[in-house]
């Protein structure tokens, strides 16, 4: 997510506070249909790509030769190319490397120029494509980028040190990201954005993901129908951040579910040191580093049964998106979000969050229930944390919002952390200030 660098001025703040609690009716922009799902049976066929002894030595050459439903098997090795799957003629193409060990099939962006340097794999206007078993790294844009697709499956992938998003789906319906790892990406490890509103929604599932060392673990601008589950988000600047921005269509984000995840140690202060060059956009964005989950506006999202610990600023936060233009502020309001049955901190008081929950009370029908807490909330009087069910306006707390603004505007990004002791985890070293010898975690 890229937040336009609109200063957090007193005017902006005052504008935001003028609409603290009431949802306003607004129409969606017209949907731009990314396409219909595959209907015909796959034509099939298998093409093989490898360094020696195969008909195809370049993946792109095989893609160019493929028809609908063709399976392309790619042998071990490093492929310096940006693969492009660009039309409905490539519907249901299966691009398969080494699902058991994606590190054996490298898509390398270093040294490439022009279009191929942008993405490891670009899927545009092709439905039902599978990308399985690759390690994409050093691209200027993304590891894998899917746009204008009805259905996709991105699985057993690794996305490392790309310019924007590790795995990225945009303006697409349905889909799956699973069993994948994203690290050292300049924006978010995983991203689903601008989901077209649908009368019969196709859900997108993100499952068994590992995101670490990114600016954000997951970002979803104006995303909807996304379920994030059984995944680990740790050692990012922030862990999971669904958000509402004007830069993309179909505001707000809604109907998402963040369920049964481990969200911990998201205290990576990439301003201090990072394995990637920070861009001016990144340094201009006041993300509150040290946050596990942050709902930045949005509605009807469930945050349930997650384990959230060791985030030095706050475990779960939510605040209306108050930086939108005045005519769009209604899209940014928090509405109907539910935070239930999450476990904050570890058993016995170990590895607490700096604060367990933050909510400024903006919007309406937001509720909290059966969360296991160990650290203080903001506000400390808990006045904004209404019990479920909740159907009317929440109690806005100006002091709480101002406190959160001070977190975001802190130049050190650590001043408001409340640090404790981390409980060690085998194979994972906490990451706050990156150094070149930081070991790639072994996630179990």
């Amino acid at each position, binding site marked *: 997510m890229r937040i336009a660098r609109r200063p957090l001025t007193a005017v902006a703040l005052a504008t935001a506070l003028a609409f603290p609690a009431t949802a306003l009716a607004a129409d969606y922009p017209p949907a731009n249909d990314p396409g219909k799902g595959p209907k015909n049976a796959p034509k099939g066929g298998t093409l093989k790509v490898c360094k020696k002894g195969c008909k195809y030595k370049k993946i792109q050459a095989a893609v160019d030769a493929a028809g609908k439903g063709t399976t392309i098997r790619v042998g071990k090795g490093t492929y310096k190319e940006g693969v492009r799957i660009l039309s409905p003629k490539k519907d249901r193409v299966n691009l398969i490397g080494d699902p058991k060990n994606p590190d054996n099939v490298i898509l390398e962006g270093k040294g490439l120029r022009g*279009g191929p340097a942008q993405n490891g794999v670009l899927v545009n206007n092709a439905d039902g494509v599978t990308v399985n078993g690759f390690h994409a790294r050093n691209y200027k844009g993304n590891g894998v980028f899917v746009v204008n697709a009805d259905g996709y499956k991105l699985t057993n992938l690794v996305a490392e040190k790309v310019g924007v998003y590790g795995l990225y789906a945009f303006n697409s319906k349905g889909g799956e990201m699973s069993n994948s790892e994203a690290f050292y990406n300049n924006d978010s490890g995983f991203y689903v954005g601008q989901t077209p509103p649908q009368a019969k929604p196709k859900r997108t599932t993100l499952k068994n993901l590992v995101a670490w060392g990114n600016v954000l673990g997951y970002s979803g601008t104006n995303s909807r129908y996304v379920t994030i589950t059984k995944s680990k988000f740790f050692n990012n600047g922030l862990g999971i951040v669904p958000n509402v921005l004007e*830069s993309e269509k179909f505001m707000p984000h809604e109907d998402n579910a963040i369920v049964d995840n481990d969200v911990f140690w998201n205290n990576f202060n990439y301003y201090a040191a990072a394995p990637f060059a920070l861009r001016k956009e990144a340094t201009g964005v006041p993300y509150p580093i040290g946050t596990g989950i942050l709902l930045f506006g949005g509605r009807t999202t469930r945050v349930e049964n997650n384990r959230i610990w060791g985030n030095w600023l706050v475990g779960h936060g939510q605040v209306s998106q108050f930086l939108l233009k005045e005519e769009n502020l209604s899209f940014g309001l928090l509405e109907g979000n539910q935070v239930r049955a999450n476990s904050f901190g570890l058993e016995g008081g170990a590895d607490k969050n700096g604060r367990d929950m933050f909510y400024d009370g903006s919007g309406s029908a937001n509720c909290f229930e059966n969360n296991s807490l160990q650290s203080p909330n903001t506000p400390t009087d808990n006045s904004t944390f209404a019990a479920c069910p909740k159907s009317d306006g929440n109690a806005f707390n100006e002091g709480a919002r101002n406190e959160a603004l001070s977190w975001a505007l802190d130049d050190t990004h650590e001043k408001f952390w409340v640090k404790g002791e981390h409980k060690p985890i085998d194979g994972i070293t906490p990451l706050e200030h990156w150094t070149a010898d930081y070991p790639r975690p072994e996630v179990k």
Partner: protein
Amino acid sequence: MRKARNIGLAALCAAGLTLGVAPAQAGKTSVKRTVEVGDYYFSPAKMTVKKDTIVVWRWPAGGGDGHDVVLRKGPSGVKKFASDVFFADEVYRKRLRVPGTYRIICSLHPDQMRQTIVVRR
């Protein structure tokens, strides 16, 4: 020369060479005008050029979100064109031969990223 590809949204995808808009020709002396493509703007957003000017849209090396260049509406006889979606360190060139008004958008961010180019005789 970068061949336009099917990358824009919906009907904006018509790519390729056209009667009125042609890719830049190597070796031909031409006036060039550069446009920066950033998050979430074209700069300049409005400009006037002489016909046959080569417009060069440039994505800075530092990069940012993905953007493309899509002709939403042009003078009569000019077919739609579109660039790939690029993120960083890339250029897209078009020679604008036909006088008139060219309305450009980024198909990913059409509400924020709009550009008007007036081509004079």
